[in-house]
């Protein structure tokens, strides 16, 4: 093991150290500038003493190191160099106990991407990849490309039909080449990991083998289908791509009329073929998934004639099947409702506005009421809302309590919060603008368990998941419901991620993962529930940690009653040793979260605050990675107090680590009295990254 000390151009004046025989000490004057000259082997354990790890870690990524902050915590605080020595010795003790982080190498074996979903986002991803000379497989479950956009009459806010957006997209994709299309195809199973996936596809035959687009089959087909508000036959065509008719097997009666008149070739047999393809990256672009609004029973969808969804209304109006006189559009049908969807689906307000505009554009005398709890027309969309108000659409603030039939007319009962009246609005058509749910089926197949939620946590850069090497991406509305504009931006982002991934032959990372020891694990499954990223699962009666999802927060390692789960490079024993070596009688130990509270301690130095010398700081990955046993060993050494500094509620870098810490603190506090300690000897505090003042006040208070 070696200790690297940076003197920061002579500012840190360490006395001569004698740390034992097998520990080499290197002194450097200015590591910031000489970083390339410092050679560290990947497996070598080092202790780097110098300035704050926030800087040092950036300079030396991917090494097995413990950083000791001498500059901010000792020199700037005018503490004695004995403390510096203690800090270094403690860090060495930690490094002795821990397992070193193994570098993980992922070979990108197949430089080919799989795009699931042929909607506007999937098309954009595929064409961006193709134009960057990356081969793509585009899998679409229906016989035609276009997804939801191909079902729409127009797009908000301009009201342009999809021919303005989707058709040029498809043209661009076809020109780029490099894409294999799979229609009527479903992803059945996915195996493998980063850079090397094997995907099983199941393709259902199209029925129409050769087609001249003569349309005779549609004329003779006896089966009429109402597809989302618009009538079509069982053999049909959507003018996107491919330019070929298709049979809807769910409704086809196989009467054979179409075969008789067909100029090409039709096979009336539903054949399923399976295929396995290989892929280096997967982009999920499965699009919008409507919430089943018939579950919102008070609005009577499916029970009362004339109650329809926004999509059905749009298609019915556009095809001329519906000419209403009075329309009530109900926003938030089932959204922001604890019984249904607790969240706002972001785009349903625009859909409501779009449908209002569609109806009023076609039939200007239509009386339209939009009933909404709040009209959420964020950003530049406010003008869309204002335009409609000028066009005579009535907006009512309220949440309708029910829709019922009286004298063969639909009645919407709602309160109007602006006028404080109870209204009963009679209408022939009631449109429910419902929310959207996540496509959990596809994510389950990818073994990404989202607990029914949208993959926000999986995708969200704000929570730091970009630290992990990944090869599964989401695009468009699969991430969260989005309009066409947002979907395209999201799709380009996903395409860029794939291009970036395929740049190298392999990815090498030292990102720490949780490792579960089979010998110690008793399959109690407590870690599964504790993991904020759903990275832990049981495969063949063994706990398996998904490398692609594990963020290395360490919450599972503390939750495990047998310490079977351990984070590489920071196992609990290491921290215990560090505490044992560092804490002396009468010290105050501060275990600070690296994301917030540790920065506050640094900030204290920059802002010229000072705290007593006996305050010893240890940096932990998360307040949730502190075990009660760590606290007890500090108290055992005679600590005057133990402070755990974490992020504010809901602001945890690892989603819920600080809540775990809170629960453990409560439990430990309730037992402290039994052991003869004062309850307040340990404190868990939320300390933001700039709250130096708060940090200093707390440690001073604890030092009294």
């Amino acid at each position, binding site marked *: 093991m070696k200790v690297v000390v940076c003197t920061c151009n002579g500012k840190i004046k360490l006395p001569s150290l004698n740390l034992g025989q097998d520990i080499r000490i290197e002194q450097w004057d200015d590591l910031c500038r000489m970083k390339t000259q410092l050679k560290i082997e990947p497996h070598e354990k080092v202790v780097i003493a110098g300035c704050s790890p926030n800087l040092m870690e950036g300079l030396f990524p991917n090494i097995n190191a413990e950083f000791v902050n001498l500059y901010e915590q000792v020199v700037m605080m005018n503490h004695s160099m004995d403390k510096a020595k203690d800090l270094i010795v403690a860090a060495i003790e930690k490094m002795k106990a821990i397992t070193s982080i193994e570098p993980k190498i992922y070979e990108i074996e197949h430089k080919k991407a799989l795009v699931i979903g042929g909607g506007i986002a999937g098309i954009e991803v595929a064409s961006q990849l193709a134009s960057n000379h990356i081969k793509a497989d585009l899998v679409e479950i229906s016989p035609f490309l276009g997804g939801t956009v191909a079902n729409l009459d127009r797009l908000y806010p301009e009201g342009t039909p999809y021919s303005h957006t989707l058709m040029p997209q498809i043209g661009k994709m076809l020109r780029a080449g490099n894409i294999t299309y799979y229609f009527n195809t479903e992803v059945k199973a996915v195996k493998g990991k980063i850079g090397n996936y094997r995907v099983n596809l199941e393709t259902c035959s199209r029925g129409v083998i050769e087609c001249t687009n003569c349309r005779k089959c549609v004329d003779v087909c006896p089966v009429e289908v109402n597809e989302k508000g618009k009538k079509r036959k069982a053999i049909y065509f959507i003018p996107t791509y491919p330019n070929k008719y298709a049979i809807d097997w769910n409704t086809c009666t196989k009467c054979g009329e179409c075969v008789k008149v067909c100029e090409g070739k039709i096979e009336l047999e539903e054949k399923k073929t399976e295929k396995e393809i290989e892929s280096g990256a997967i982009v999920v672009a499965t699009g919008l998934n409507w919430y089943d609004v018939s579950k919102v*029973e*008070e609005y009577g969808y499916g*029970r009362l004639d004339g109650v329809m969804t926004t999509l059905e209304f749009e298609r019915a109006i556009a095809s001329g099947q519906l000419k209403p006189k009075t329309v009530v559009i109900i926003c938030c049908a089932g959204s922001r409702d604890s*019984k249904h969807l607790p969240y706002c689906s972001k785009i349903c307000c625009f859909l409501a506005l779009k449908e209002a505009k569609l109806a009023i554009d076609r039939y200007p005398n239509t009386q339209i009421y939009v009933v909404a709890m709040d009209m959420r027309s964020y950003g530049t969309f406010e003008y869309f809302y204002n335009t409609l108000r000028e066009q005579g659409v009535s907006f009512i603030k309220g949440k309708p309590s*029910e829709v*019922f*039939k*009286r004298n063969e007319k639909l*009645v919407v009962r709602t309160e109007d919060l602006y006028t404080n009246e109870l209204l009963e609005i009679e209408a022939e058509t009631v449109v429910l603008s419902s929310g959207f749910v996540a496509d959990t089926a596809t994510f389950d197949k990818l073994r990404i368990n989202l607990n029914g939620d949208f993959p926000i946590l999986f995708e969200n850069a704000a929570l730091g998941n970009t630290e992990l090497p990944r090869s599964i991406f989401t695009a468009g509305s699969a991430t969260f419901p989005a309009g066409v504009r947002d979907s395209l931006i999201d799709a380009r982002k996903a395409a860029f991620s794939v291009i970036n991934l395929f740049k190298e032959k392999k990815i090498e990372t030292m990102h720490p993962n949780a490792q579960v020891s089979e010998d110690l694990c008793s399959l109690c499954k407590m870690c599964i529930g504790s993991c904020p990223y759903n990275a832990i699962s049981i495969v063949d009666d063994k706990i398996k940690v998904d490398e692609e999802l594990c963020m290395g927060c360490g919450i599972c390692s503390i939750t495990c009653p047998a310490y079977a789960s351990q984070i590489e490079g920071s196992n609990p024993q290491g921290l215990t040793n560090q505490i044992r070596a560092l804490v002396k009688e009468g010290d105050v130990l501060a275990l600070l979260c690296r994301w917030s509270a540790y920065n506050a301690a640094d900030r204290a130095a920059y802002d010229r605050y000072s705290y007593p010398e006996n305050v010893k700081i240890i940096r932990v990955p998360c307040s949730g990675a502190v075990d009660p046993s760590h606290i007890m060993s500090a108290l055992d050494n005679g600590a005057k107090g133990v402070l755990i500094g974490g992020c504010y509620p809901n602001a945890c870098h690892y989603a819920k680590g600080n809540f775990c810490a809170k629960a453990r603190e409560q439990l430990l506090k309730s037992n402290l009295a039994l052991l003869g300690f004062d309850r307040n000897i340990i404190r868990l505090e939320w300390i933001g990254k700039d709250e130096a003042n708060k940090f200093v006040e707390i440690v001073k208070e604890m030092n009294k």
Partner: protein
Amino acid sequence: MKKYALFLGCTVPVRAQHYELSARNVAEKLEIDFEDMKGASCCGFPIKAVDAETALLMAARNISIASAMKLNVVTLCNSCTAMLSDAQLELKKNNFYRKFKELGFSYPNEITIKHFVRMLYEDIGIEKIKSYVKKPLNMLNVIAHYGCHYMRPSYLYGFDNTEVPQTLDELLSATGAKTLDYVDKKMCCGGSVLGIDEELAITMANHKLNIAKNKNADALISICPFCTIMYEDNQRKAEAKYKIQYDLPVLYYPQLLGLSFGLDKNSVGMRFNRVRPNRLLEKIGDQ
């Protein structure tokens, strides 16, 4: 033979003897055995708004009595059902259970709590009830009033459709009577605000009475003593306030069921009805 503990509450024995009488007689016909709960008190509902915890503890105490008897509870009143179910849910929470224990109560056996009508629907079944009907009441048009706490809050019961309730209508159809569908089926009777704002309560009661009159219903069928107080006892007040003549009999479901089983009018306690159901009895030929 099915056996239940019958929880009466306070309103039924004092103001709705005909409900109890008819329920017991109908149960006897259907071979249901009711055992009385010795020491049972008020369910706690009336003081819930003032002191929720005491109210829940009162309900939990009643549960502990039934639990000691190892019998599932059947209640006659909607509010009692809600209160007992609420307490049963609360007993699963540590803090509440600790208080419950401190008071010397126990909950040794897991029991279920069901409204009388729900018990008929779920445990006896429509088909079996139909087989007991001797005198179908085809000539009657009735409207069903469910009351709030028969199926709400849904997290307590998970029974029936809270927006479009059906069970009472189905049970009424089993007697042969025709049930009339109407708007505002699940509207509250007004009983819950009676103590604070009588004016409002009477307005709410009047709304449904008016619907029944417009629909030409022979009777309004209730399953909760509170609701009946609003529609029957306070019918006069509504008539005086709105200057309308209703004269609408308000029957409990087991009364109507008893009539269809061939019980005479006294066995179902018709003389206790404040609004005399003479015309209704004439119609079915039972004077």
